[in-house]
Structure formats: C-alpha cells, structure tokens
C-alpha cells in the first residue's frame, strides 16, 4: 500500500501527471520531479516559510503538504510568478532596497508579500510585518524587506490612480 499514487495537477499553468510515493511532500515533488528549484526547503516543519507556494490561489507551506494532497489542484511556484511578470516590480524593489541578501528566503518572502499586496493595496508596516511573520530571513534583512514591500505597494497605488 506504500506504492506510488497517481496524481494529476496543474503547475504554473501546465498539466502535470505523475506517480508519487505518499511520503513525498509537495516541495520535494516540485524540486526533484519538476526541477522547479526556486521553492526552497529550510526547516521542513512549517516554521521558516522558505517553501511557500500558491495552491488554488492561496499561499501554503509546501513542506507541510503531501504531493498526493495536491491532486486536482492548481499550484503556482516562484518560477510561475516570475515568468508571468506578476511580481516584476516587487522583485525590482527587492533588488533596489537590498532586500535580497543571501537569497534563500527570497522566494517565500516574495510569495507571502505578493499574497498580502493582492489582499490589501496599501498595508501599514505593521501589517506587512505580521503577514511576513511566518517567513524567516537568516541574514536578518527584515527592515529592507519591509521597505521593499512598502515601496511596491506605493508604486502600485500610484500606477492605478
């Protein structure tokens, strides 16, 4: 019964069919089976947030989800958001504000930040901090990250007005 299970899902808009062992988590499936290595694994128990991806439009921890649970869902990774241009301005702000540092936490930070900016046009700094509180930066670059998210929110406001 520990045999592979058939799954069918969409990843960054492309149909994916696979057979996976039940113990395989979604992060490893993305990295090892699909070679989408932008999703990072830090703690593997839900603390660090480096593995954040979108499932059905909502951010989740891909280390706390089995690949078999992703059957019939639409998964979006940092590669999808980056290639579509959805977060080009946010990525530019991270570069401009020196919010990248070593880059390990960056994919998860970008996923979480974009999630907040989709929900709220101009979040206060405290709201940005709270929304990113589940993402660890091991370089402790938090101030610059908050700056970059705030700057992106402001730029998007100005563009829309």
């Amino acid at each position, binding site marked *: *019964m*520990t045999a592979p*299970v058939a799954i069918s899902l969409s990843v960054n808009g492309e149909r994916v069919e696979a057979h996976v*062992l*039940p*113990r395989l*988590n979604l992060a*490893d499936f993305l990295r090892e089976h699909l070679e989408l290595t932008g999703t990072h694994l830090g703690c*593997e*128990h*839900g603390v660090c*947030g480096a593995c*954040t991806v979108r499932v059905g439009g*909502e*951010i*989740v*921890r891909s*280390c*706390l*989800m*089995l690949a*078999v*649970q992703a059957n019939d869902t639409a998964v979006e990774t940092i590669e999808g958001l980056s290639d579509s241009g959805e977060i080009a301005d946010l990525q530019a702000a991270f570069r401009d504000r020196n919010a990248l540092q070593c880059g390990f936490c960056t994919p998860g930070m970008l996923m*979480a930040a974009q*999630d*907040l900016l989709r929900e709220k046009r101009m979040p206060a700094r405290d709201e940005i*901090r*709270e*929304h990113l*509180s*589940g*993402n660890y930066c091991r370089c402790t670059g938090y101030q610059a990250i908050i700056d970059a998210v705030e700057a992106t929110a402001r730029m998007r406001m100005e563009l829309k007005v």
Partner: protein
Amino acid sequence: MKASAFAYARATSVAHALELLAVHGEKARVLSGGQSLIPAMNLRLVAPDVIVDIGGLAELRGIAVEGKTLVIGALTRHADLLKSSDIAKFVPLLAAAVAHIAHPAIRNRGTVGGSLAQADPASELPACMLTLGASIVVRGPGGERRIAAEEFFRGIYETQLAPQDLLVAVELPVADSGSAHFFQEFARRHGDYAITGLAAQALLEGDRFAALRLGYFAVGDRPVLAEAADKLTDVAVTPALLAEASDALSDELDPHEDQQATPAMRRHLARILLRRCVASLLKRPDLQLGGVA
C-alpha cells in the same frame, strides 16, 4: 527531515473514512489540513502505517447557525473562521483567537478539527472551546456522540477520541447579548505557539461579572478553566480582590518547564493576563495600572 514511509488512503465519504479507521485502527492517523500532523511526521515524532486523508470531504466543511447553536464542520480552516461574518458576530472570541494562530500560509490549510484532535496544550482553539463551553461531535463505530470540551482534552496530544473515531464538528452556544470576550497570548514571535495565553468570555451586569470563564493555555498538559474566576463573579471587583484572585490562580495552575519559560514565569504571565483581562472587560484601567495582581 522527511516522514517515514506510509500507505495512503483517500476517504470518499465520512462512512468510508470510518470504515478505513475501523480496519486500520491504531496504525492509522487521520489527515485533514496536515499543519500539525505533517510536521510531527517530518520530525519522526509519529510514524503511522496508514494515512486516512479526509481533506476532500466537503460534507465536513462549513459554518452554520442553528437556533442558539453555531456548528463548525471539522474541516473548516482557520482562514475560514477569520473571514466568517457568523464567527465575528456570534462567537467573536474565536475570531480574535484565530488571528494568533500561526501564519497566513498555515491558516490556509489548518483546520478546526485537526487542531482539536491534535490537542496541543499551547494551541489556541482547545482553550477557546473550553471557555465557550463547546461540544465536540464525534462519529465512531457506535454512531455519533457529543463530548463536552471540558471532558475532551485529557493531556498533551491526548483526547477522548478512540482510534476508530472521527471528529466531525464542534457545536458552540451563540454569545448572549451583554457578553464580552478577551484574548491575549505571549509568544516570542507573532504566530508562534504561546508561552502563556488566556481566552476569556464574560457576561456583564452593570459593573460586575454575572459570569466569567477564563480558559488558560500553555500552562499545563491541557487547557484549563481557572477556578479563580469564581472569586470575581457577582461582586464589586477591587484591586485587593483581584490580587486575591491572582494568588488563587497561581496556586491552582501547575505550569510546565520548557525551553521557553519556567513555571514561575508562566505563573507570572498568567497573573498579568488576568489583570489585563479583568481591567479590559470591566473597562477599569485602574485595575491594570494600580493593582498588585
């Protein structure tokens, strides 16, 4: 770390899930959102032979008001509670508590039933259920039964659920008019498990408590309803009385020691929460500032 190998079965209905649990019993674990179970499996704290995935059972999802009772399906997610106008209106304590549960990415997957079945003594929802006088609805081989929250939690990660049981819903009394709530916890980082927390529900009559329930969490092996609340009910609360209730609270709590805090620190934080709670619910800042609690 990674979870050890296991077999996987996707339940297609509650009846199917119960059949799977009847067959596999203690070798199986129920998977809903997985936000407690999967970290425990990744850390190899648990290694079930079989996972029964109930994540697709839409019949267990949703919030409904039935007269004076609010019913929350076991698969309702933390994020759903946070967005629900019924929760905000009828059990506002829960809405306040959920904002402290982990982080958005975890609230999008974590479920009410999963949190209650996990029974982590530092998590918010078990204490809220105790405070609110909830009934836990369970289905097992003998049919459906209701367990009072006060009976349900038995110890660290330990509940009244038998291996063949499935937690299907919780039932909560709708808050009376004139009721008020307080929720606060101390944590190292917003969203982390609490070092000490308090979920309180009160019924106010003028400047007094007609009823007061204080559900403390992370101060023992399970959430506790503090008996010290009785000292503050149906009386005019003075700083001296609050100090007396705080002493009684210290005596009745039996906090554990871990990497985060000593028992003495947890007692101290519990007293601070009591003072803040009473001052806030009675709108008496003097009790918080001037008291010796």
